[in-house]
């Protein structure tokens, strides 16, 4: 999922990269260049090098947002954009690290679900947390309902994290984020 709040985020969305062609129409409707880099196990390294080259050299990107980008990014990528890659994870970290967190939350019978925006690092879902939020659920909520409620959270938390980053309100210290003005 991909979300742009016109006027609320003081930045330019210069480029959208995806490993699937499906969301091109969204990029088009906002007049943002859209590039597809398909990823497989064998082509991963090569494709990533191309992506990095495009972002750094061609588009001069300052901040990378992983808006439910489902591929794991390499060490090298993280080093190139150190504390400049924001990921949204669809759980209240450190609960439910990794895949299918809504399914696992449903199995565990938690009464709250969350979303966490953090800087991506080499260790999956372990980077410094910028922002988190939760919403209440009950036994009545099936996984599809968790997904629906969670999507709203993810959007809001990601937008908030991007906002504080572009407003230079974050200092990363000891794998944690000092966030000013909150």
């Amino acid at each position, binding site marked *: 999922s991909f979300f742009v709040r016109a006027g609320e985020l003081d930045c330019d969305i210069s480029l959208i990269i995806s490993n699937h062609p499906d969301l091109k129409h969204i990029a088009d409707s906002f007049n943002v260049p859209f590039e597809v880099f398909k990823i497989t196990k064998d082509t991963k390294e090569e494709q990533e090098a191309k992506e990095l080259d495009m972002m750094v050299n061609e588009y001069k990107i300052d901040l990378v947002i992983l808006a439910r980008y489902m591929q794991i990014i390499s060490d090298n990528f993280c080093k190139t954009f150190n504390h400049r890659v924001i990921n949204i994870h669809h759980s*209240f*970290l*450190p*609960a*439910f690290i990794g895949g299918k967190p809504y399914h696992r939350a449903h199995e*565990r*019978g*938690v*009464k*709250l679900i*969350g979303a966490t925006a953090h800087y991506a690092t080499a260790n999956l879902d372990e980077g*410094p*947390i*910028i*922002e*988190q*939020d*939760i919403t209440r659920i*009950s*036994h*009545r909520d*099936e*996984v599809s309902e968790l997904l629906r409620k969670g999507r709203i959270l993810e959007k809001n938390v990601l937008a908030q994290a991007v906002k504080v980053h572009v407003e230079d309100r974050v200092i990363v*210290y*000891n*794998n*944690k*984020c*000092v*966030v000013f003005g*909150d």
Partner: protein
Amino acid sequence: MVASKTAKAAIGTLRVHGPDSRGIVAACSQVLSQAGCEIINSEQWSDHKAMSPHFFQRFQFKYCPSTSSQFQSTDQSLAKLCSEFRLNHELNWRSRKQRVGIMVSKYDHCLWELLLRHRERELDCEIPVVVSNHRHLEHVADTFQIPFHFVPISPENRIEQESEQLKLLQQIYNVDVIVLARYMQVLSSQFLDQFDRKIINIHHSFLPAFSGRRPYHRAFERGVKLIGATAHYTTEQLDDGPIIDQDVIRVSHRDEVGDLIRKGRILERNVLVSAIQAHLDDRIIVYGDKCVVFGD
């Protein structure tokens, strides 16, 4: 003048759950109605996504306690009905208040909260005893004139001491449910078997994050922006039992561990009370390792 003898109405609950099929609601309602029970509240839910759909219902009803035969014949009709529909059921006439035994160690905030709320009549139960592995909180129990029993625990005497605890809780004080109000010892499976899904624990984190020891310290190290507390039924797996209630509170980089602990205490108290109220109200049906909580 003839004094009219109007028996005071009482309120009871019936919880049923089992494989979903047609006719359950009608059949249960009829049994209750025939027993002279007036249904005042009913809530149901079906888990349609399960492999075989499972049905849950909670009835709350008014009745006039007359003779014990009413209880007996209703129990029998219900047992028969539930056997036909393959339902689990729990009928609670609530002719007496539930007896809640509290176990505590050295942290006092949850104990104070429970006893204060109880005094304000917010917890509809009796609290006949406080059991602790330290003497520190005896004065708290004394303030509320509740019997306090000191049962120290060490790795060597754990089993004997648990027998002592069980003797107090079961035989002497006859408690229905145990609340671990920041009781810091791990209970053995033998102990847990005696009170299956009748032991409510408060864990000072938003489970399943930070299960185990020192959750506030670990939350601080992780740099989370929210901390939580979770009330759950205690099972053999540490901090893994069915979750009754949870809540969170915001924290920031400015909060040191001491601040997390301080903010967390508010949560722990509120979440624990909320969970106990749900249990005392018979609003919970435990299903596998999750809780269906009605009326929330």
